[in-house]
């Protein structure tokens, strides 16, 4: 879905969102609630400038609009792969963005992510995966790597990976796989404004993704292992 259509459907009460190249931010209104929107278009790679800019936008919301919910609409093919970004410490810029999003949450801002295009690896880790809850549109794509590339890197035949992907959500890209593993709370369809309003009103209590993944049968061990390490007598 293109971002103009998406914004109109998310914010039937109107929005005031300005784009600058692949970046956009502003305010959307849904059933009387003002929501800060920060996002990108065109499957853009996230390099240091963009990570820095998004972090600045989050800090500004925390500073000037205490408590205002934040919706991340980040469309990315992943972190920018470049020597120059590594030279300048892109991992530090990504971590900074993650810290800013976490700060917003700790300061009482509801933070939601909606994957409407692509979400990949580092670009996903530093943004929507840090939200209280992350959602996706059914036709969006989430991945680390596609199966042919995974087959090359792991030296496991593509046929085998394809066959296993029919029953396991661990290998292949796809929003449904991430939903089964608990990282995507739900897929949004139909009335997107109603979905958003419902997500804004839902209670949050820490990181429930492991429990969700277990409940949905997509990740059988994460919750159990983490709980054991947390609680076992040393």
């Amino acid at each position, binding site marked *: 879905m293109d971002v103009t259509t998406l914004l109109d459907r998310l914010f039937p009460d109107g929005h005031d969102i300005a784009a600058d190249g692949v970046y956009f931010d502003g305010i959307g209104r849904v059933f009387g609630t003002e929501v800060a929107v920060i996002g990108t278009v065109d499957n853009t790679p996230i390099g*240091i400038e963009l990570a*820095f800019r998004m*972090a600045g936008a989050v*800090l500004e919301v925390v*500073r000037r609009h205490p408590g205002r919910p934040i919706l991340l609409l980040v469309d990315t093919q992943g*972190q920018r*792969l*470049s*020597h120059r*970004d*590594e*030279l*300048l*410490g*892109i*991992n*530090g810029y990504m971590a*900074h963005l*993650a*810290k*800013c999003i*976490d*700060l917003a949450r*700790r*300061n009482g801002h509801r933070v939601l992510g909606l994957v409407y295009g692509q979400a990949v690896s*580092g670009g996903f*880790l530093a943004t929507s*995966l*840090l939200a209280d809850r992350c959602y996706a549109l059914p036709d969006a794509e989430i*991945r*680390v*790597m596609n199966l042919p590339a*995974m087959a090359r890197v*792991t030296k*496991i035949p593509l046929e085998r990976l394809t066959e*296993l992907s029919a029953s*396991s*959500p*661990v*290998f292949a*890209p796809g929003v449904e796989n*991430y939903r089964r*593993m608990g*990282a995507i709370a739900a897929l949004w369809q139909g009335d997107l404004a109603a979905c958003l309003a419902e997500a804004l009103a839902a209670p949050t209590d820490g*990181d429930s*993704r492991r429990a969700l*993944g277990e409940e949905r049968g997509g*990740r059988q*061990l*994460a919750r*159990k*292992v*983490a*709980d*054991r*390490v*947390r*609680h*076992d007598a*040393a």
Partner: protein
Amino acid sequence: MSSYYEDSARGRLDGLLDPGSLIEIVPPTERMVSPHLRQLDTPAAFDDGIVVGEGRLAGRRVLVAAQEGGFMGGAVGEVHGAKLTGLLERALDTRPDGVLLLVESGGVRLHEANAGLIAVSEVMRAVLAVRAAGIPVIVLDGGTFGCFGGMGIVSRLCDAVVMSEEGRLGLSGPEVIETTMGVEEFDSRDRALVWRTVGGKHRYLLGEAATLVEDDVAAFRAAALALLDQLSDRGPDLSLAALEAEHAVLGSRLERFGGCRDALDIWEKLGVEEPEKLPILDTASFLATVRDRRV
């Protein structure tokens, strides 16, 4: 001297902690292996490539995690990541003096990519929860495989990173960039280029690493102890003011060095007199040479 670079995860913990103080949680005897590797007929490890436990550092109570680069490059899978997340959350209950992460990882384990990515995200949130609870988290990075991918982000979420010259820290590894973007973008076989881009000396000069030590387990121990004591006085700071200050630092890094194409240009801008000589200096001479020169 005992090389940190060449040691195993367990060897590093042995040398780092007070003798005999490590108590491992969910040890290899439990055979908590990755179910996904088994599906792929790929050899598993009984600890899934990470040791987690409790120990003492000069008497201080610490929780520790050590990634084993010898098993799949320390990559994070479902079980590996859950052990790390569980350890961090344990700190919320037991309130140790600090958490030490001996990182060595290429990032997400591609054999179980989706589970690994989500696991790293859970680790990220857990690190920030621990710091927000006032417990410092310190990273030690000097292993053979360096620290890349999601673990490169995790490292910079922590209070401080200790590195050796041999340690490497970044997001996308040089091989990944070369494979995807071409050898003109990043020649991963140019060792000198790799070290001066993601190696400990450059990370220290940029301010990404708090301390640079020799490749010696005892030196890592001393640095971790010093940071632990410093942090126990002031505690982690994730306030708006602290993050605004970090934002200003990263903004000025972009402004000052955004046009640089090589570490040598950055070192020159920092006022280092003969930047081309930095890579050959031993750690002590390097530290003396760059005193007052780092960001």
